[in-house]
C-alpha cells in the first residue's frame, strides 16, 4: 500500500458537542500509526505506506441539525461521501473501508455529485427531496469548491473582495446596487432598507454608527447563530460594505451573551483584518477608516426593537423610545445610527459580492432568500436557507421530511414568540405571502405541531415568555401582559379553589379579551405590546372550534390541559380504601356511600394524583 491522501470534514452546530467530538476524533486518529494528520495549511512530505488525513472543521452540510454530527470523506478518486449522526469511534474504521474502496458494511447517508467515480448504491445528493429547495445565496452550495470553504477566517477571496471594494467601487455604486435590489430588512420590521439608508446618508454628523443586532431571542430560533457561526466573514464583509457605502466609521456587533464562541470568532477575525490593514485608520490609503467593536448583550426579546438595543448598549434599561426621532438621526450616544439584523447584513454582503439579483432566488416576490429555523415535531429540524417564494408545505415536507412518528400536521407557527399561528389552509402560501398577510414575520422560525398538540398549551407557553419579556417601560403592556397570560391560563383551567366563584370569574376574564386587546394594542409603545394579543387572535381565527371547546365545554381534545381533565372512579373497582381522599389537594373526593368514593367535577383540578395513588386502578381519566 502506498501513501494516500484523504480529506475529512465535519460540521457540528452545537459547540459543546463539537469540542468533545473533535477531541475524541483527533486522539483516535493520532493513536493509529497508519494515519498522519495534516492540517490543510501545511505542506505534505511524501511518506510511504500511510494515510494522510486532511481535516476541515466547519465544512460540508451545515444546518442539518437532526443529522449532526455530519461528516464527509473524500477519496481522491471517488465522490465525496457524507455520513450522518456519526460517532467518532467509527471514523478510523470508515477511513479504512474508504481507503480499501469497500464500503458495503458502511451506511453512508449520501454522496455528492462531484468529480470522481460514483459509489454504487449510495443515494446522490441531487436525488434528495430537499436538494433544490435549499438555496445557496447566503450559504455555501453543496458542490464544487464551495464545499470546503471555511468561512471563519479571511482567505484570499475575502481579502480581494474588500480590496476591490475600496479601490474599484464608489460608495454611490454600492448604494445604487442595494437600492436596485429592493432588499427588505430581515428583522421583524418589514421596511425596505433603502429608507433607512437614505435617512442616515442625509445626516451630516461626523460620527455615525452601524449596529449589528446579533442578539436574537427565542427559545428555538437559531437562524442568526447559524449565520454568525458558519459565515462570519460574510457578516464582516457586509459590515465593511455598508460602512463604506454610507461613510460610517464605527460599527458595533451586539452579540447574544450565550454566543461566546461567536464573540471570540469575531474578535479574532477583526484582529486578523486589522493586521491585514482592512480595518483601522486610512484603510488601504483610501482615507476611509472603520473600527468594529464586539459587545456581549443579554438576550432579550425587546432588543429586537432598535431603540431598546441602543439603550442597552449605552448601559441603560432596554426601553424603547418614541419614534421619531428615528435612530438614523438620533441614535447611539446621540449620533445617527443604523441598526441592521445579521441576515440583512449578510444579504447586503452577498448582493455586492456576487452581483446577483434577489430575483434569481425568488422570481415571484423578488425578495431572495430567508434563513429559517425549522422546529417543532418535525423530522428534519434544522436551519435552512429557503426561497421567499417556496410554499410552507414544501418546506415542511420536502426539507423537513414531514412530522415525527408520521403524525398528522395540525398547523404551524411562524415568527418566534411574537409570531402568528396558521392552519393547514395556509400551507400552500410562501413566507412572502404570509409576511404580507400579517405585515410581520419576526424571526422566521417555522414551528410545526401535530394533531396531538393542544393549541391552548402552545399559546400558554408563548404568553408566559412574552410576559417575562415585556420590558416594563409602558404601564399598559407591563400589566396587560400579566393579565394576558393569566387569561390564557384560564382557558385550560376549569376549577381554582383559591378564587371564589371561579367558573363565573373565569368566563368573565376570558370574555374580557376584546377589551384587553383594545387597551394594550392601542396604548402600547412598541411592537411587542402591540402584538401581545395577535398570537391569540391568529390562533383563534384558525382554531376557533378547539379554543371555544376549551372555553365553554371545558374540554381539551388532546387531553393536554391538566386543568380540564376529569377523573372518574370506577364504582366496581373501588374498594373504598380511601387512599385517594388523603392525596387529593383540593378535597374533590368525597365518600358517597360507605366504601364508595366519587370525584366532584366542579372541584377536581385534574392533577391526576389520585390516579397514581390508587392501587386498584379504579381511577381513570374521563374521555
Amino acid at each position, binding site marked *: 500500500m502506498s501513501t494516500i491522501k484523504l480529506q475529512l470534514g465535519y460540521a457540528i452546530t452545537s459547540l459543546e458537542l463539537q469540542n468533545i467530538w473533535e477531541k475524541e476524533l483527533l486522539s483516535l486518529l493520532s493513536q493509529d500509526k497508519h494515519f498522519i494528520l495534516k492540517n490543510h495549511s501545511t505542506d505534505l512530505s511524501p511518506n510511504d505506506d500511510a494515510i494522510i488525513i486532511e481535516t476541515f472543521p466547519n465544512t460540508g452540510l451545515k444546518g442539518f441539525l437532526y443529522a449532526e454530527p455530519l461528516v464527509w470523506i473524500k477519496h481522491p478518486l471517488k465522490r465525496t461521501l457524507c455520513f450522518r449522526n456519526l460517532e467518532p469511534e467509527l471514523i478510523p474504521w470508515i477511513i479504512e473501508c474508504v481507503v480499501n474502496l469497500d464500503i458495503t458494511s458502511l451506511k453512508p447517508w449520501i454522496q455528492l455529485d462531484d468529480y470522481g467515480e460514483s459509489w454504487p448504491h449510495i443515494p446522490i445528493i441531487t436525488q434528495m427531496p430537499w436538494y433544490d429547495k435549499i438555496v445557496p445565496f447566503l450559504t455555501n452550495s453543496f458542490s464544487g469548491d464551495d464545499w470546503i470553504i471555511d468561512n471563519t477566517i479571511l482567505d484570499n477571496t475575502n481579502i480581494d473582495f474588500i480590496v476591490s471594494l475600496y479601490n474599484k467601487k464608489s460608495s454611490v455604486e454600492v448604494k445604487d446596487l442595494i437600492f436596485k435590489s429592493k432588499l427588505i430588512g430581515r428583522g421583524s420590521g418589514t421596511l425596505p432598507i433603502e429608507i433607512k439608508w437614505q435617512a442616515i446618508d442625509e445626516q451630516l454628523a461626523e460620527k455615525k454608527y452601524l449596529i449589528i443586532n446579533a442578539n436574537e431571542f427565542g427559545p428555538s430560533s437559531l437562524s442568526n447563530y447559524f449565520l454568525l457561526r458558519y459565515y462570519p466573514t460574510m457578516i464582516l464583509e457586509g459590515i465593511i460594505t455598508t460602512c463604506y457605502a454610507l461613510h460610517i466609521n464605527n460599527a458595533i456587533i451586539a452579540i447574544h451573551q450565550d454566543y461566546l464562541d461567536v464573540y471570540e470568532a469575531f474578535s479574532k477575525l477583526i484582529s486578523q483584518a486589522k493586521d491585514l490593514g482592512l480595518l483601522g485608520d486610512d484603510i488601504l490609503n483610501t482615507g476611509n477608516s472603520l473600527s468594529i467593536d464586539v459587545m456581549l448583550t443579554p438576550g*432579550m426579546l*425587546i432588543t429586537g426593537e432598535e431603540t431598546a438595543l441602543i439603550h442597552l448598549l449605552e448601559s441603560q*434599561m*432596554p*426601553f424603547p423610545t*418614541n419614534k421619531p426621532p428615528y435612530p438614523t438621526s438620533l441614535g447611539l450616544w446621540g449620533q445617527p445610527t443604523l441598526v441592521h439584523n445579521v441576515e440583512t447584513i449578510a444579504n447586503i454582503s452577498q448582493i455586492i459580492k456576487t452581483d446577483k439579483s434577489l430575483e434569481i432566488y425568488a422570481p415571484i416576490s423578488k425578495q431572495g432568500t430567508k434563513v429559517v429555523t425549522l422546529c417543532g415535531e418535525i423530522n428534519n429540524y434544522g436551519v435552512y436557507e429557503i426561497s421567499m417564494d417556496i410554499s410552507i408545505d414544501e418546506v415542511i415536507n420536502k426539507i423537513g421530511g414531514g412530522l415525527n412518528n408520521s403524525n398528522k400536521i395540525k398547523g404551524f407557527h411562524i415568527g418566534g414568540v411574537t409570531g402568528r399561528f396558521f392552519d393547514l389552509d395556509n400551507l400552500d402560501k410562501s413566507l412572502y405571502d404570509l409576511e404580507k398577510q400579517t405585515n410581520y414575520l419576526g424571526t422566521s422560525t417555522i414551528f410545526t405541531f401535530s394533531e396531538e398538540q393542544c393549541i391552548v398549551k402552545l399559546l400558554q407557553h408563548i404568553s408566559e415568555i412574552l*410576559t*417575562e*419579556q*415585556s*420590558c*416594563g*417601560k*409602558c*404601564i*399598559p403592556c*407591563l*400589566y*396587560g*401582559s*400579566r*393579565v394576558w397570560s*393569566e*387569561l390564557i391560563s384560564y382557558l385550560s383551567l376549569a376549577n381554582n379553589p383559591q*378564587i371564589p366563584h371561579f367558573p363565573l*370569574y373565569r368566563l*368573565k*376574564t376570558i370574555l*374580557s379579551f376584546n*377589551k*384587553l386587546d*383594545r*387597551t*394594550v394594542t*392601542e*396604548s*402600547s*409603545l412598541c411592537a411587542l405590546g402591540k402584538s401581545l394579543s395577535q398570537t391569540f387572535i391568529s390562533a383563534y381565527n384558525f382554531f376557533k372550534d378547539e379554543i371555544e371547546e376549551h372555553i365553554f365545554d371545558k374540554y381539551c381534545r388532546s387531553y393536554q390541559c391538566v386543568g380540564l381533565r376529569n377523573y372518574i372512579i370506577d364504582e366496581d373497582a373501588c374498594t373504598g380504601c380511601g387512599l385517594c381522599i388523603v392525596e387529593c389537594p383540593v378535597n374533590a373526593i368525597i365518600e358517597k356511600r360507605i366504601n364508595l368514593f366519587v370525584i366532584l367535577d366542579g372541584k377536581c383540578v385534574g392533577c391526576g394524583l389520585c390516579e397514581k395513588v390508587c392501587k386498584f386502578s379504579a381511577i381513570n381519566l374521563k374521555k
Partner: protein
Amino acid sequence: MKINITVNNQKYKVDLGENLLNALLSLGYDIPHLCYLENYSPNYACRLCMVEIDGFNNPIQACTVDVNTPLQVYTHTPKLINIRKNILELILSQHSLECNTCPKAINCSLLNYAYQYGVNEIIWRHVITDSKEKDISSPVIAKNINKCISCGICVKICNEMMHCNVFNHAFIGTKKTIISSLDKPINLSNCYYCGQCSYHCPTSALYEKSYIDNVEIDPQNTTLIFDSAAVYNLMSQINSNFTKNPILSFNYLCQFLGFKKLINLGELIDAKLYLDFQLLKDRKHPIISNLCPVSIEYIKQKYPELIEFISPLASPMQAAIRLTNKSNPILILTNCSAYKNDIFQNYSNTEHKIYVANVRDFLKYLLRNGYTLEQLKNLIPNIKAKKNYSYSIGGLYADISMYNLLKLILDETNIQIDKPSKINSFLTGKNENKKYNFRLKNKNYSLISINTISEIANFFDHEFLKTNLALIGCWSCANGCINGGGKTFEIFKTTNKSLSSRNPLLTQIYNINEDLIIQEKLWKQEN
C-alpha cells in the same frame, strides 16, 4: 411666538414648542396623567394622557407632543375615555388596594382618576403578584414597592433634578421593579432626603413618614417653628383664593389655635444671610451660606474641597431651636424633608422634644382636633392686618432672601444703583443663577443666588473660581422649596400639581412690597 391650537373646538394660542400636555393642563383641561413632570423630558409610561389629534390615525400621548404646528386636539372622546378607564383598570388589577390605610389616600391621583373614570369593577383582579417588604429604613422617606406603578417619575426626578441616582429601574417582565441603589435600603444609599421623589410619586410607593399622627400637642406650651413656604402652602390649602399676607394671617390663626410662641424660620434665614454678609466683609474669599440642607450636603459630597467656604454660623433651623426653651415641646411646620432628616439626625438623642410636621400632617392634626377648613377659612377674612406688622417671606426662594438682603444693604449704605431694574432680577421666578454686583468701601461684592442642583453644579464647576467676595445662597429644589414655593400642596385636588411656575398666587407674592425688618435682636441674643 404663539401658535393656534383648537381643543375640543375651542381656539387658543399657546407658546411655540410648548409641551401639549402642559399646555392643555394650564388651559384648564383635566387630562389624567401619572408620569409627567413639568420641565422634564416625558416618561410616556402611563399612556393616560392620550388625546386624539387630527391627522393622526391613533390616539397619541399628549406629553410626547410639542406644539410646533397648529393642532386640532380632542381630549375626551368616548374612545379616549374608554382607553383611559381600561388602563386604570389594568393598573388597579395588580395594585395592592389598601386605600383606607394608605398614607397618600387623600391626594392619590390613581384613586382619584379611578373614581373620576368610574372604575367600579376590576375584572382582572386575581393576577397574582408577590408582595414585598416595605423599606422604612430611612427616617423620612419610606418605600412600599407593592404600590409602585412603574411610572418612572422617581427615577427621573432623583437622577435629573437631584443628581443623586438613588432610584433605578430594574429587571423586565414580571420582575420589573424600582430599586434604590443596588437594592440596598434607602438609608444606605446616598439619598439627600430632599423629598422630591415622595412628593411626586403618584401613589404611596414612596411617601414621607409622619411623626405626629400618634402625638397630641398642647398648643399652650408648645413652640411652633414654621417655614414661610409651608405657611403659604397651608394658607392656600385653607383658602384656595387666598390673597392676604400669609404670615400675618397665620399668626392670627395660631392665636386662634392657641399657639403662643411662634418662630418664623424665614426671618431667621434673612437674618442669617445678613450675618453671613457681615462675616464676608472681613474675609478674602466667598462664603456659601448654609441654608438649604440638601445643597450643602451636595456640595460636601461633590466638592469636598469647598467645605471651608461654607458659613461657620449655625443653620437657620439650628438657630431657631436654640431660641426655644428646652423644657417645652417644639412643633416644626415645614414641608422640607431634608430639614426633617436634619432634625432627626441632630436632636433625636437630646432632651428636646421635637415634632416635625409637614402641611398635610398639620392639617390632619387640625381636622382630628375638630377644626374644619371652612371654619378656619372664615376666620381669616375677619382679621384686619395691622399696619406696621412686619414679616419676612424668606425661605420661599433663595432669591427672596437675597432680595431682602440687597435692599437692606442699599438702605444702610445709600449706594446709588445705576440700573434700578437690576435689583428685581432676583425675582424672575426662574431656575437660574442670579447675581448682583456692587462696590462698598473700595471692595467689590456680589450676591449670588442659585436654584436647582444642576445650576449649583454648573456654578461650582465653572464660575466659582472666578468669584471672590461673594455671598452665595443655594437652594436645591426646582421652582422653590418642595411642596412650598408657591406649589399648592393640594389635599383634596390632584390636578395642576406640577404647575408651580404658573401659579398666579406665586406671582402675587413677589409683588408684595412691605418694609423689611430683620429680627437681628433674636439672633444676637443667642450668639
